[in-house]
């Protein structure tokens, strides 16, 4: 039986540095709904996406400035790809993916390792559903990629890019299904059934 933990519940009587927890008077408490296993390990189950350095994001170039490219990454403010950090020649409307580099105290974000995505389509899903689309150790995403024979880049920011080749309609249907049913249990099993049914 999994032990569900609510915000404010004690995870450890020692101070620990874990994401989605906080320390008060030397003890560690959960700050989001999570799961505590027999060994006392805490796994958050619901959490808001907040960008961290190294996260993969998909974006749209929305402006070209002297200092760099302004890229919409579905966050409360646009990210920047500094001109000095890249040799890419991008235009407004280009689709890209890359990693989050620096996050400034003001909330401004620099991107790094940015690459252009040629052709294909971009879609947005609620960021809260992204972990469900990726699945444990990328299991869900791998299943979607293999069974639909499509290149897919899923950004932690909720943008998803799908290549022009491959079974785009099926990918769309699968993602629609996950978004509509992400709150339900046993999603991976239901998904493989769903894909099988629609492959015919």
């Amino acid at each position, binding site marked *: 039986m999994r032990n569900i933990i609510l915000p404010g519940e004690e995870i450890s009587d020692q101070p620990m540095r874990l994401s989605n927890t906080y320390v008060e008077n030397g003890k560690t408490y959960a700050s989001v*709904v999570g799961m505590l296993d027999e060994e006392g390990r805490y796994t958050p189950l*619901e959490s808001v996406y*907040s960008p961290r350095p190294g996260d993969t994001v998909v974006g749209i170039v929305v402006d070209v400035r002297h200092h760099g490219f302004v890229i919409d990454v579905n966050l*409360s*403010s646009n990210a920047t790809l500094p001109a000095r950090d890249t040799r890419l020649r991008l235009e407004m409307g280009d689709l890209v993916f890359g990693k989050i580099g620096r996050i400034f105290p003001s909330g401004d974000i620099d991107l790094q390792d940015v690459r252009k995505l040629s052709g294909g389509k971009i879609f947005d899903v609620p960021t809260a559903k992204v972990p469900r689309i990726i699945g444990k150790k990328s299991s869900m995403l791998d299943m979607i990629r293999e069974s639909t024979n499509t290149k897919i880049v899923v950004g932690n920011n909720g943008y998803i890019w799908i290549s022009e080749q491959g079974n785009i309609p099926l990918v769309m249907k699968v993602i629609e299904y996950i978004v509509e049913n992400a709150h339900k*249990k046993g999603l991976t099993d239901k998904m493989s059934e769903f894909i099988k049914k629609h492959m015919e």
Partner: protein
Amino acid sequence: MSKKEEVFKDGKRPDGRANDELRPMKMKVGILSNADGSSYLEWGGNKVICGVYGPREAIPKHSQDPKKSLVKVKYSMSTFASKEEHGRAGPSRRSNEISKVIKEALENMVFTEKYPRTQIDVFVDVLQAEGGTRVASITAAALALADAGIPMKDMCCGVAVGKAGDQIIVDLGKEEDNLGQSDMPLALSNRDKNILLLQMDGLLTLEEIEKAIELAEKASDKIHEMQKKAINSVYTEEPEEVFTM
């Protein structure tokens, strides 16, 4: 007949509850498909639905706080919430005040500094009302915030305490609220029992207030258990397909 006799027949509360007994409650989370977090709460004759959106970019831009997220609460009452009349749509002075005190309760629980320049919207709609809608709203809102995965210091819930028929009682029903001697809605954090919301009307002595708060603390433990059960059931039970009220 005096008021206290009207409310308390033969020394009993109108619905026969013990002084420390809560009305029946039913809670559910994750009932809305668009909201980042949601909940539904039935508490006696109250039916409350809550949806949370965010953190999202705070608008208008000049309202943004570079250091933290703004918790925004909108409490509304449906036009069919009470048996007597067809109510007016839209905010009233009463609903605006309640929105404000709920906000000032919840913002103490949320780690707002994690999401600068954003806002977290909490929409509470009272579909049906029978006394104690503001404390029901806070209880539902805490569930929806947890469901949204918004980092919080602690869970919290609301409960009203007060005095009717010369007795200190918990969870006042509509009749007790209208005809009783005093009503004191409270919201408490779960672990430390810090007071997050406090309002009061009518007359109470210091001793009565102390006793009432003790009753509220005990009640809040029971409510928290139910909140925990509601969240638990998301991960352990097959959710119902049909929206049930």
